[in-house]
């Protein structure tokens, strides 16, 4: 008896049915009423012992029917769409028209959006796209897992606060308790912040880049935490958790021409779009240069790279410094939105950037940007009722859905939305047991 049942349960079809029904029940609980700590099981009970659960079970059965009939877990149409999508943005051979079209979308679509969405497009999508581009050099190109990446963003922001002041209500306001004797236009802070951030990257990387994969991850995580803690605790320098208020907006004065990026997000967005495009061009050139090849070599086989004359430590350090300076640059942009406090520079933010990079498709600059658009766009869209269904995700549950989407995405497309060709090959090969897709693998020490 029991063996027969368990045999039936372990058959693939039965297992799939079980999976679909389980998914349906989980969905019912997720969308169901809340519980409370007084009656912890009430939420689950009210979600499941309710007529609405039948709707979900029907949905589960439908899912089962669709997946079983199509004979594969992925609907075919969707696969094709995905392939085309990756062809459009994942390949080197994309023609200028394709790029121009994407650029046109990026320029025109925001004009149609509400000011809040525009603001989110700058602060959540744009800045994180820039951050992801930088981290992509570290994680995607060099294969180094950096969990303290946001620290350089903090360094950029605090550098800006140190070098600037603004006038509010006729009073001069310094963002920090200490300020530079020489106050600058935020535009001139860019090079300084980039320099300081990259020096910080080299100081951190110098002693630690010898460490392998996960050890590097934890050390960088520690660095990120240390920077945040210092920002929070050094009241006489950073104003502690009260943060820095009064960084002036960006402004440009060339001869008689002068322009100030005011409170509206759109001008900031366009500036950032320009920067992102320039950075994308620069980094794609970098990837195709000898440096990109050397980084790929390090990622695939560090010992062989070293034996082929590649100064592995130096290149890793270079990747680290490039990532850090991009992050620092983004920090300046963020700071010029007037106010920030240490909370922004949390480990969660580092993890978010990493998620964007991998979600988008590791090693691909389009992936980094697309990851930021999709993930951050999702976080934003979840604030409004879902179109067609009209169901509004309760604010408090937003991250339940967000987490589920990330998980489902990684399960069905572990290589990310648009992986780079090189990366895709590495992944295929590591499936076949050749090489390591990232330098996290136990990079054999030839023994």
């Amino acid at each position: 008896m029991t063996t027969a049942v368990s045999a039936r349960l372990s058959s693939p079809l039965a297992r799939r049915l079980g999976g679909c029904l389980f998914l349906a029940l989980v969905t019912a609980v997720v969308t169901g009423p809340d519980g409370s700590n007084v009656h912890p099981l009430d939420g689950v009970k009210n979600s499941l012992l309710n007529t609405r659960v039948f709707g979900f079970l029907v949905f589960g059965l439908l899912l089962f029917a669709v997946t079983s009939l199509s004979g594969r877990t992925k609907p075919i149409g969707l696969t094709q769409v995905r392939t085309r999508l990756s062809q459009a943005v994942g390949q080197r051979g994309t023609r200028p028209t394709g790029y121009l079209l994407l650029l046109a979308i990026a320029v025109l679509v925001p004009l149609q959006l509400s000011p809040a969405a525009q603001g989110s497009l700058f602060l959540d999508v744009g800045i994180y796209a820039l951050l992801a581009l930088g981290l992509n050099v570290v994680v995607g190109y060099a294969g180094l897992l950096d969990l303290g990446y946001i620290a350089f963003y903090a360094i950029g922001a605090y550098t800006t606060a140190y070098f600037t002041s603004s006038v509010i209500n006729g009073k001069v306001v310094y963002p920090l308790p200490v300020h530079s004797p020489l106050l600058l236009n935020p535009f001139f802070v860019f090079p300084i912040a980039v320099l300081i951030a990259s020096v910080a990257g080299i100081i951190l990387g110098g002693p630690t880049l010898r460490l392998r994969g996960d050890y590097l991850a934890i050390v960088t995580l520690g660095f990120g935490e240390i920077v945040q803690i210092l920002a929070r605790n050094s009241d006489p320098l950073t104003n502690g958790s009260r943060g820095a208020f009064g960084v002036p907006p960006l402004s440009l004065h060339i001869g008689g021409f002068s322009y100030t990026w005011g409170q509206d997000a759109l001008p900031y967005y366009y500036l950032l779009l320009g920067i992102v495009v320039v950075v994308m061009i620069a980094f794609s050139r970098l990837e195709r240069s000898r440096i990109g090849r050397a980084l790929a070599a390090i990622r695939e086989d560090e010992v062989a790279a070293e034996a082929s004359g590649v100064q592995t430590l130096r290149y890793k350090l270079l990747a680290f410094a490039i990532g850090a300076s991009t992050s620092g640059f983004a920090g300046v942009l963020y700071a010029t939105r007037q106010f920030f406090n240490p909370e922004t520079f949390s480990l969660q933010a580092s993890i978010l950037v990493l998620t964007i990079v991998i979600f988008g498709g590791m090693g691909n600059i389009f992936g980094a940007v697309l990851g930021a658009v999709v993930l951050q766009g999702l976080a934003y869209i979840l604030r409004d009722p879902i179109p067609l269904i009209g169901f509004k995700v309760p604010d408090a549950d937003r991250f339940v859905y967000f987490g589920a989407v990330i998980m489902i995405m990684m399960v069905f497309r572990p290589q990310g939305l648009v992986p780079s060709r090189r990366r895709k090959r590495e992944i295929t090969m590591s499936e076949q047991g050749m090489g390591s897709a990232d330098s996290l693998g136990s990079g054999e020490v030839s023994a």
Partner: protein
Amino acid sequence: MSFVDQFWQLTVTGLLVGAIYAVIALGYTLVYGVLQLINFAHSEVFMLGAFGGLFAVRALLPSGNINALLSVLLVLAGLAFGAASGGLAAFALERTAYRPLRRRGAPRLAYLISAIGASLFASNLAGKEFGRDSVNLPKDLFTYNTEVFSVFGARVSSQDLVVFLVALAMLLILDRVVSGTQLGRGIRAVAQDADTASLMGVNVERVIVRTFVIGGLLAGAGGFLYAMKFNASFTMGFIPGVKAFTAAVLGGIGNVRGAVLGGLVLGLVENYGQFFLGADYTDVVAFMVLVLILLVRPSGLLGERLGRAA
């Protein structure tokens, strides 16, 4: 209040916290051993175990006074329910966030992100189901202010003693399991070389699931201990998770005894650091020590091999 006066007090507190770190760290280290992956969602297993144990004990709690025998029984019940919740959560986690990726031969960073997604999902769902405020037991299982004994003048309460002893017992049991049982041999075989292990008849899939579940049982029970001493909330997992992960790396990730040593060392370092530099800089000290240790011993205090250590 010189350091010498406070030394034993700080040591006792540090060991206590360290023991809890160690219990969680074992989950990281075991999974790392067999999959070479950081299980980022392990902290949520710990959180769910805490809720499971806490709610069970709350349901069982009598209205009257609690005598010694009853408190022991309640602690055991809490541990059992906490462990069961943790084990179940770890099992579900492996099934949903890890196994499908393994079937697809996903790159290692994809697991990391999938686990991050699972972690967001689980913690926020717990917030939805169990409320977003912290919960604790309506009354203490042990009467407070009862000093059991003092170690060189350091006060140790009965609850602290129980937490420490239970943690210690779990660590010892796990060590025996890994070194002495067939399951342990399977885990070690997979840790050393999964391909060879499967050729030699080890059911690798099953070993992986069981490794997750063992880590979950420990983290769940640890979660209950933690919730009993402090409280439980849907965001409670993150910080101990990061600390335990740090402890696992400090000891040499993949190494069972290393995780224990790492946990205790981290607990002590934090407490001593807190004394000298204040609570704000506790983590700074902890991470500085981590960096220094890794620079001298690049693969942790005891090195990496799961097989060798156990």
